[in-house]
């Protein structure tokens, strides 16, 4: 069903007759069309199978066949609501159109196949990995953990550290690294799904999910690819300093990649977020991303609108931005900086025996079954200087803050914390005194009111005079007040602190007492 499409796009329209016996169900769902834009105001839409099959679109059959690349655009027709609302997704190149269309249909088909069958259909580890050497120790496909990737099928992870401890490699240099020979079996490729041939590999942290489509690199067949690695580790402090998350528990999006028990990463979050949007908008999950509980993958039978919905969502920038804003980076981030170099492998002189040995090892046959186009050699090793940690540390801590505050305060005022306490004390005193004064003032007010009420007897004067006369210290007071300067001279043994306050207090206290007793005028 794929070859048809190709034949139609390719020059000879006469071949269309030969392909009568095609199943048009997939084609009808989302057809590729040609749009003739020679008249820009009234574009003519041509169905590729227009003359064979009556499609719902306005198919003007005969003249369209003459249209070439200059005038025509290939587009994909995406319809929803039973074909009432349609959009045309334009492509400038037929290649892209074919690839996009094929990928769309492939996801539709694969999503209906159970996972076990897909795993069985993909490359098993023993077929892919022909030879493996880690340092000086031999290893085999049993040292690899298999994981199924919707795009790439079976992927094999070395030293994932899920069940066993991670292997250390402290020595730099190609000798101590991982050496692999892979068989990619180029003859068995699906022609439309991918046009590149090679292996895809990704270096990632232990226990993290490999997002090989986003971050992976190619390794070419027929070459030896050497990858020198430099590990760049970044550790961040977290919340008050930078916006990052330790394990993803504070991100509002459930991590769909957690069934492998992998650690949180921003890619996982963004993909989960997309799948979340997909389920909300299209009510089915996209095949490329893992499925939340109780949801189904999209396919044409159950969800006829999904292709329209998906392509709408995919180019929606607002959706992506909400995802970016929702997701947080993880605080510990490891980057692998790679220096890639390539050389031809196997060399012409060694090609014969290497291929012979490898094919014999693989299927015990004496004739060469492998070809130069199908094998990849990989060397992955640490560079000389192999590990670098960048750690975040707070620029200003509490010690810094305090010392700076102290410095500023001291610089401008010569003050300290004790100064502040002193100030506080004075304020407390001030408040205390005002309270006392206020209380006294209100008391006196009350008394005055009371006086105003009684207002009759003025015997206080006599009493006052009596009280004054009663005290024998009166002459002292008189002599004392005008000549304070000469006062110390009079005292032969001057203990200056004690006597005058005594007198003062004596003088003041009786006065107070007297006045309060006599309901005095003022304090």
């Amino acid at each position, binding site marked *: 069903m794929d070859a048809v499409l*190709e034949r139609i*796009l*390719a*020059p000879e329209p006469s071949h269309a007759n030969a392909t009568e016996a095609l199943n048009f169900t997939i084609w009808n769902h989302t057809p590729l069309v040609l749009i003739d834009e020679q008249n820009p105001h009234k574009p003519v839409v041509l169905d590729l199978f227009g003359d064979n099959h009556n499609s719902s679109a306005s198919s003007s059959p005969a003249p369209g066949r003459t249209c070439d690349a200059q005038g025509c655009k290939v587009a994909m027709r995406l319809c929803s609501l039973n074909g009432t609302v349609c959009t045309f997704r*334009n492509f*400038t*190149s037929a*290649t892209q159109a074919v690839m996009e269309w094929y990928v769309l249909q492939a996801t539709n088909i694969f999503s209906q196949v159970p996972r076990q069958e897909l795993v069985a259909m993909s490359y098993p580890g023993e077929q892919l990995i022909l030879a493996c050497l880690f340092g000086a120790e031999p290893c085999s496909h049993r040292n690899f953990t298999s994981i199924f990737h919707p795009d790439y099928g079976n992927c094999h992870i070395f030293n994932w550290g899920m069940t066993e401890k991670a292997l250390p490699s402290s020595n730099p240099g190609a000798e101590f690294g991982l050496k692999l020979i892979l068989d990619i079996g*180029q*003859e068995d*490729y*699906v*022609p*439309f799904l*991918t*046009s*590149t*041939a090679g292996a895809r590999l990704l270096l990632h942290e232990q226990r993290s999910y490999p*997002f090989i*489509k*986003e971050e992976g*690199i*190619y*390794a070419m067949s*027929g*070459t030896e*690819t050497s990858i020198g690695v430099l590990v760049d580790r970044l550790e961040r402090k977290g919340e008050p300093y*930078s916006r990052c998350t330790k394990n993803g528990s504070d991100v509002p999006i459930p991590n769909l990649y957690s069934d492998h028990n992998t650690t949180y990463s*921003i890619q996982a979050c963004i993909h989960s977020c997309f799948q979340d949007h997909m389920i909300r908008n299209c009510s089915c999950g996209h095949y490329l991303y893992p499925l939340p509980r109780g949801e189904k993958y999209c396919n044409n039978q159950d969800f006829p609108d999904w292709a329209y919905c998906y392509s709408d969502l995919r*180019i929606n920038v607002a959706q992506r*931005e909400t995802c*970016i804003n929702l997701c947080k*980076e993880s605080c510990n*981030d490891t980057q692998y*900086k*790679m220096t890639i170099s390539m050389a031809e492998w196997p060399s012409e002189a060694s090609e014969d025996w290497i291929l012979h040995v490898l094919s014999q090892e693989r299927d015990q046959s004496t004739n060469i079954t492998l070809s130069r186009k199908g094998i990849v050699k990989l060397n992955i090793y640490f560079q000389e200087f192999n590990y670098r940690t*960048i*750690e975040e*540390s707070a620029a200003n801590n509490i*010690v*810094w803050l*305090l*010392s*700076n505050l*102290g*410095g*500023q305060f*001291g*610089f*401008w*005022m*010569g*003050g*300290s*914390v*004790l100064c502040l*306490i*002193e100030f506080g004390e004075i304020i407390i005193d001030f408040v205390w*005194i005002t309270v006392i004064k206020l209380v006294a003032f209100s008391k006196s007010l009350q008394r005055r009111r009371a006086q105003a009420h009684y207002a009759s007897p003025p015997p206080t004067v006599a009493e006052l005079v009596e009280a004054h006369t009663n005290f024998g210290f009166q002459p002292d007071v008189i002599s004392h007040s005008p000549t304070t300067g000469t006062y110390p001279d009079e005292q032969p043994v001057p203990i200056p*602190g004690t006597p005058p306050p005594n007198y003062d207090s004596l003088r003041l206290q009786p006065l107070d007492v007297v006045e309060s007793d006599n309901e005095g005028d003022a304090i």
Partner: protein
Amino acid sequence: MAPGEKIKAKIKKNLPVTGPQAPTIKELMRWYCLNTNTHGCRRIVVSRGRLRRLLWILFTLTAVALIFWQCALLVISFYTVSVSIKIHFQKLDFPAVTICNINPYKYSAVRDLLADLEQETRGALKTLYGFSEIKSRKRRDAESWSSVWEGTRPKFLNLVPLLAFKEGEMGKARDFLTGRKRKVSGSIIRKESDVMNVHESKEVVGFQLCSNDTSNCAVYTFSSGVNAIQEWYKLHYMNIMAQVSLEKKINMSYSAEELLVTCFFDGVSCDARNFTLFHHPMYGNCYTFNNRQNETILSTSMGGSEYGLQVILHINEEEYNPFLVSSTGAKVIIHRQDEYPFVEDVGTEIETAMATSIGMHLTESFKLSEPYSQCTEDGSDVPVENIYKAAYSLKICLHSCFQTKMVEKCGCAQYSQPLPPAANYCNYQQHPNWMYCYYQLHQAFVREELGCQSVCREACSFKEWTLTTSLAQWPSEVSEKWLLSVLTWDQGLQIKKKLNKTDLAKLLIFYKDLNQRSIMENPANSIEMLLSNFGGQLGLWMSCSIVCIIEIVEVFFIDSLSIIARQQWQKAKQWWAQRQAPPCPEAPPSPQGQDNPVLDIDDDLPTFTSALHLPPAPGTQVPGTPPPKYNTLRLERAFSNQLTDTQVPAEF
């Protein structure tokens, strides 16, 4: 002045130091607590009430403990280093991507211009190395260059002759054109370094460049004939192309539709209209994607190859110039929108029949300018005129500097760089000796004799894309058939024949992830930091503040200066008085003048406050009588006064 007098008096009074400030330890402590600048102690003594005093003791002790603790922490943190690199995860601007074919012009179009040169090159190859045209290449069959060769006199070889040297007899060279040996004067400059030991016995090929009067010549030799022929060809090629107008050159080069077969960005189709033309002198037509057309910069909000730029390039190997370029492919430069793409210097080469995937990481660096480092913000303060229409960078500055010097010295501009105002490119007709001049200048430039390197400064901020390049075979064997036929259909009219896979290259450029690293320089000490550090130091060593400093300034500068000034003034006055009345009796004036300040002090002492505080009469009357007793008495009295002073406000 009054304060000066007072201080003088005080100093005079306190100068005879007779021992510690107090007779007993307890008194000394008391005295210290009252007079010290640190506040806690004073509070302890001054406070009334046992609870208060206890609290103050507690506070003071806590403060002392805190100081010790904090200082210890500071000392520890002094020895740690902190690096600040910020990482943002956000939508990133996609950089501008410039794509050039390595071959600048279609050979079929340039051929007419270069016909003579090509013939002579072939002739030279034949005589030097016995190389003749491979007949398998059909398109060059038509030429029978050897016959033409005989007829016309070669002009290029005459102008700059290729020479073959015999090792050992350096003075002589064989001009292969005439076959005769001729003397070569002038210095021989080797392109290869002298340290390298090139083939001993073999012939060395080079060419001779002479200045106007041919008295001053330099000979450039190469260890390999390949280099020699290519350099020689390039010289003449530049000379020829310099005379061609820009429009013609653009027409001779590749159009966007020819170079770019398909284009896909961020899941959406794009085509040649999304690329802007940029003509590079050595690389012909280059096309820049995302070059701020319509004032918008495309951005990526997803990492991964799917969401980046995917281009299939058509590299027509048949149109390649055989002598100018010897490799096949395209060059890609990833740069900022306002940056000039230096195609020849930076740039990743792309192979044909391969998919090249380039993953990017963005790093942004900001440096602090003038007081901290030598960098420049926008190049406006660099005395070199920017002849490129692009943002300043160190490379632009160096190239501009060289080009300006070239115009100054040689009178014409070098071909591979833009033209400064009021200058034109070098060619033989107008500037017969430009090559010699250029080579001389270039050598001076490399040896940093032109001063460009010292004048140019680096830019303060730059964006850098770290690239991870990997290759894969493309198209795969099984997809090759359909892919090529569909691509041919796509190209339609432009290409008559079927595309070959060695004519195509696939390029993927994408952000690996959306993490942006920005490395920023921050001033380690701001002004607040400086002040607070000052404060800290002053407080630490002197318990002193800005008030303290003002005090010091007042006392030691204003007051003492005024005192000195007054003394001088009085001296001058005396001297004047002496001069006025020389016959007067000599004794009275001088003691009077000396006595006067003392008298002043004496006058000053019994002001009412001091009189209240200290009775001067007994002290002066009985100076020799038991001093300790009196001292204590006096001190005690002072305390009592102070105490009463503080008491009064407390009472209120």
